[in-house]
């Protein structure tokens, strides 16, 4: 092959590469716009489109539009009462047909409890108070505003609903477990085997899962649609330890508590913007 043709081929190769990668580049560069387009669209509906993007760009909190469901765990009301935590956990697992697999490798949990240092590893653990050391903390899916699990899922089997719930389509999930890698909170469980034999009391109102798919807390989306409260909240209702509501509604109960009390979130430095808050 003579030199000139070689030269031409080099140029042709480079051009082809540029052509092929162009859509990907466009996609990549436009992704922040997509991420904020939800706010943009919501803002449009309310007739204030221009500022939403600006505010987001400066890292300020954008004007809350639409519904964003959130949950608050008032740990003060759980301290010294592990049975209350267990009650909330059991209620959730019963309603959602979560199998009871007593084996750490294969277990499935939607809501569970763990020590402070595990739940909040980014917070200081030296010289922690007795109450902090002796109590377990309630954990579940954070239903993040910027969920990494949704970002990494290759089939959109996990997705974000307009009301802020990060939901799962158990029938689309291929079981690649990329979402479990993406979730920095360990909120997701995988069905390593057929879960149905491990369901003690079957609830016909909610589907059970098959093996090979991922599952997690769904903020009781199916109950909220019927006007009910989340199962964990309902189970400990009289204690007032769990508050649920619209984070974007300044008049909601959860907002009243958030405005009044000091709350923390899990791993805030990762930018996932959790919808679950804690009073510790």
């Amino acid at each position: 092959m003579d030199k000139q043709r070689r030269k031409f081929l080099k140029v042709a190769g480079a051009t082809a590469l540029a052509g092929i990668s162009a859509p990907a580049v466009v996609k990549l560069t436009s992704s922040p716009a997509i991420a904020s387009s939800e706010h943009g669209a919501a803002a449009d509906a309310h007739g204030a489109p221009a500022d939403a993007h600006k505010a987001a760009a400066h890292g300020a909190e954008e004007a809350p539009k639409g519904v964003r469901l959130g949950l608050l765990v008032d740990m003060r009301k759980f301290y010294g009462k592990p049975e209350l935590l267990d009650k909330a956990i059991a209620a959730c697992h019963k309603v959602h047909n979560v199998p009871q697999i007593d084996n750490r490798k294969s277990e499935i949990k939607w809501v569970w409890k763990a020590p402070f240092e595990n739940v909040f590893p980014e917070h200081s653990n030296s010289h922690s108070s007795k109450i902090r050391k002796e109590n377990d903390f309630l954990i579940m899916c954070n239903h993040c505003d910027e969920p990494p699990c949704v970002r990494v899922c290759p089939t959109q089997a996990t997705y974000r609903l307009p009301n802020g719930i990060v939901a799962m389509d158990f029938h689309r999930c291929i079981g690649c477990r990329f979402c479990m890698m993406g979730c920095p909170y360990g909120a997701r469980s995988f069905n390593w085997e057929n879960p149905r034999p491990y369901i003690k009391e079957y609830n016909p109102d909610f589907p059970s899962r098959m093996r090979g798919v991922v599952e997690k807390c769904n903020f009781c989306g199916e109950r909220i649609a019927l006007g009910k409260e989340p199962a964990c909240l309902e189970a400990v209702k009289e204690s007032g330890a769990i508050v649920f509501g619209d984070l974007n509604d300044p008049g909601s109960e959860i907002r009243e508590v958030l405005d009044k009390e000091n709350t923390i979130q899990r791993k805030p430095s990762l930018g996932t913007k959790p919808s679950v808050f804690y009073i510790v």
Partner: protein
Amino acid sequence: MIEKVFKGNSRYWMWLAFLSAFVGVGAICYIRQYLFGLGLTGMGRDLSWGLYISQFTFLVGVAAGGLMLVLPYYIHNYKVFGRLTILGEFLAISAIIMCLMFIMADIGQPLRGLNMMLHPTPNSMLFWDMVVLLGYLGLNVICAWVILTAERKQVKPPKWVYFFVYLSIPFAVSIHTVTAMLYCGLPGRHFWLSAITAPRFLASAFAAGPALIVIACLVMKRVANFDAGKEAISKLTTIIMYAALINAFFVLLEFFVGYYSNIPGHKHSLEYLFFGLEHHGVVYNNLVPFMWTSVMLCFGGLGLFAYMKIRKVGTDLMVGIGCGMIFFALWLDKGLGFVLGGLVVSPLHEIVEYYPTANEIGITVGIWATGFLLVTLMYKIAVDVEHEVEA
């Protein structure tokens, strides 16, 4: 050309039978896993990726490694690699088929695999990985087949195929870059969250892929009367040396960042892999012997190559041993340490160690054997065509 795989001496058939036995074991193990679920593996809730994904990651590198033959020959007109580029392409094809098999072995609902294409999701790196892997597979099939056919007919390859040859070069880089992006974009996985992950993957790929090709050449020289030529082998070992050194340099940079910054999250995995990680009074150090073996083999192999190059000595056996050492070192580093080390600290800061089950190892060995079988068949075709042309 396919017919060439059906003619061979008894050694060829014995080798195929040997590999087929492992393929059979793998198939049986896979049927067991398919019927029961991934619970038959050592993976669990806290450590939900394991041997399959780490083999996949390593083999993407082997596939990309063929670039080190294609690029010098087609871009720099380095004629010495003329007889070898086809080997690089065939190795890439086999490695990618192995990658796809490992992915299928790893997913919980393999029958839903096509959902990746039915619901394309550009924000998922796994989607892009599928795109570039299938693209690279297709390109290599086209290039290898067309060029080999032309060689057999002793005509120049058609001009249009060069478009695909040149296209395969950026694709080779992209497959391993996107594979690295599966890992390095995940929040909360500190060991993987490093911009150097992709370059490190490429460096180790450009050592491991050519190392395997050199070993294959040396074997074929003995058993199939195929001589790649001394200069080609020597140049390849130089490439392997540089790539392995760059990989080692990148690993040392990871050490610096972790230990000098003293941020626990950045140190945990390195501590676990090389020294043992202490947590609540228990020391977790399963992988420490493997990682130090990797270090020894890598520097041992580099030392051997350096000795041969400085003293201008060396037999085929020494070259083969050196390549084997570096290939195995990089397999330990990437095919074991990278994935398992990054996962040892769960998001809830619990330490979970990984023990692959016998069934899982059976599937893994079966897929490797399938890969070697494919490489053997394809190299048989390539070598026989070569002999036919010479005759």
